[in-house]
């Protein structure tokens, strides 16, 4: 049973479809074999029954041809009986007539019956004689020989080659029919396996089509058998989401807890700076303030990143005006530019530019791009923001006239956590922008300007 399960189970076959087909083939083969054996057995039994009847009739006919005569027994072996027996498939025939223990006529050494017959009702048995498988029948009757009653037993044996052949042929015929049927059914089975597995494949497609961070439950009509899988999948997704939400809450909470004391420290440091003129102390205080700024910026970017991830999952595009959004972000950044004495100019913001997107994510992206530009621009330089539409794309370019980062440094800027020279937090900021662009099926690139400085270009598809 285990061997059968192992054979049918075919655990080493990785493909479910192949496994189904393999199981079908194995079970079918077993079925064919079973059919062969069964039909053979039935055919054998049937023909044995009919041939036994003939054999019994023949042995009785012979026994009735035995007569007592003056000087013993006379036997008129009936030609027709033998001829008829032989007609049933050219069988070899053996017979004997025994009086008591002596063989009076016929073959010596025929195998004796398992239980000696007592009357004219034939006893049947099977035995081997002269290397041939025989089916034998025997009858007995008492006869008067020399005025004494002696038991006379007539034994008639016959090979069953023809019978075996018929049974074999019948079984083979059945097996061939089954095989032919199998050959017809195999393609149907393939189709059926295909049909059975198609919901699995479609479910897989549905899951595969989702965005990399789409953690909404999978809603897809599946057959009842797949419902547990779907439920398990959605359970997993829900747990994952819970874990992510928890992580996010944790980040926000941590940020809050860290920033409040940092604010105090920074403020105190600034106050201390204002009150001391000792150069060494001032240097230390400045360093302190700078460190606080760094960690604050990092925290912001981590939060931004978490936000972008979260929004990518729940990406719900709405129509928005990129020009208005850019103007608003520009306004928020202007004070920072002011601090550095930078001139911020813009072009193309007067005309609305409508596209489908996530306002918060785009805001974060724009804020990061502009923060970056402000950071890298030459002191008292210019940051220029230009928005135009081309090739069904909204192209927003922010160019600074800063140090002009080129080559490896540019691509390096995309790597999370890497900073450009001494400017903190630039790596993650640009990673965030790239992710926002990807979520919107857009592109983000940084290109050095020939006259110095860098252009950050965000291209978003227009509807």
């Amino acid at each position, binding site marked *: 049973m285990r061997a059968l399960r192992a054979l049918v189970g075919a655990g080493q076959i990785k493909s479910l479809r192949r496994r189904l087909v393999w199981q079908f083939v194995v079970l079918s083969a077993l079925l064919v074999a079973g059919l062969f054996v069964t039909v053979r057995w039935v055919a054998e039994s049937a023909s044995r029954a009919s041939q036994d009847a003939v054999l019994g009739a023949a042995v009785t006919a012979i026994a009735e041809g035995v007569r007592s005569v003056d000087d013993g027994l006379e036997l008129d072996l009936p030609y027709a009986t033998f001829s008829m027996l032989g007609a049933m498939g050219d069988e070899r025939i053996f017979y004997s007539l025994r009086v008591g223990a002596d063989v009076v006529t016929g073959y010596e050494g025929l195998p004796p019956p398992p239980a000696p017959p007592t009357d004219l009702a034939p006893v049947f048995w099977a035995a081997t004689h002269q290397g041939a498988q025989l089916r034998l029948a025997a009858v007995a009757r008492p006869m008067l020989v020399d005025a004494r009653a002696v038991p006379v037993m007539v034994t008639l044996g016959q090979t069953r080659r023809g019978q075996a052949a018929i049974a074999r042929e019948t079984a083979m015929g059945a097996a061939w029919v089954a095989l032919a049927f199998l050959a017809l059914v195999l393609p149907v089975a393939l189709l059926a396996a295909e049909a059975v597995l198609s919901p699995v494949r479609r479910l897989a497609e549905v899951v595969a089509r989702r965005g990399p961070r789409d953690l909404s439950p999978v809603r897809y009509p599946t057959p009842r058998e797949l419902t547990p899988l779907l439920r398990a999948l959605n359970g997993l997704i829900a747990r994952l989401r819970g874990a992510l939400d928890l992580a996010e809450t944790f980040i926000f909470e941590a940020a809050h807890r860290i920033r409040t004391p940092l604010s105090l420290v920074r403020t105190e440091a600034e106050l201390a700076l204002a009150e001391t003129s000792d150069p060494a102390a001032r240097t230390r205080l400045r360093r302190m303030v700078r460190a606080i700024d760094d960690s604050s910026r990092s925290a912001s970017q981590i*939060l931004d990143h978490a936000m972008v991830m979260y929004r990518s999952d729940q990406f719900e595009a709405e129509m928005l005006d990129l020009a208005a959004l850019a103007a608003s972000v520009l306004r928020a950044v202007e004070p920072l530019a002011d601090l550095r004495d930078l001139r911020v100019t813009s072009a193309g913001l007067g005309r609305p530019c409508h596209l489908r997107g996530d306002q918060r994510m785009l805001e974060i992206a724009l804020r990061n791009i502009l923060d970056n530009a402000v950071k890298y621009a030459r002191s008292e330089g210019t940051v220029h923001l230009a928005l135009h539409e081309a090739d069904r794309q909204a192209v927003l370019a922010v160019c600074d006239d800063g140090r002009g980062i080129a080559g490896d440094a540019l691509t390096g800027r995309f790597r999370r956590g890497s900073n450009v020279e001494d400017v903190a937090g630039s790596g993650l900021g640009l990673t965030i922008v790239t992710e926002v662009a990807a979520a919107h099926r857009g592109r983000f690139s940084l290109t050095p300007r020939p006259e110095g400085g860098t252009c950050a270009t965000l291209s978003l598809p227009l509807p």
Partner: protein
Amino acid sequence: MRILLVEDGEELARAVASRLALEGHGVDHAPTLADARLFLDSAPYDLILLDISLPDGDGRDFLAAERAARREVPVIMMTASASVGDRVSTLDLGADDYITKPFDFAELQARCRAVLRRRAGAADSRRHFAGFTFDALGANVTIGEETRELRARELRLLEILLSRPGQTYSKAHLIDRLFSFDEEVSDNAIEVYVGRLRRKLEGSGARIETLRGVGYRLIAE
């Protein structure tokens, strides 16, 4: 400028108030929203610095109520927890700007100025000194009939010097105030701006005096 600081952290509030006082602002501190309401009812303010999480409520709700009551005092939201993304919601509620703790006071100052500039007329931003008029929101000085535009750092330098005329400011102090802390600036950088401002103030009857080894001060001639 008169500022209402709504912030529940006692120490932070005191430090922020001290720091803003350095800029020449008058600061009142309200540790709760209820206190803030009292302050607002009793005196006019040029600006409210409003924390989001307060013991007796959410600063955003307070802001929404203020705006619903058509009280239009400029508000800059402060938060320690939210990311840039939260800016949208607070701005939608009617906040004028948004700043994340810990903040650079130079940035805060810049934001205040930007807010007030947008709300032009909310307060008289002009000051008179010697022979010139300084308009911080307009970023210019007027000498007689002539108006001279000031660049951002010139403006801030003038603002600092003008906050206490006659007081000497060390180079280091001015650098702290003029440059952000992530900029590595030499002491001499300040001389560039002092030089520029001197040219802008020529003929105004005021001048920036150099006290060698000590610093600079603004005096009337």
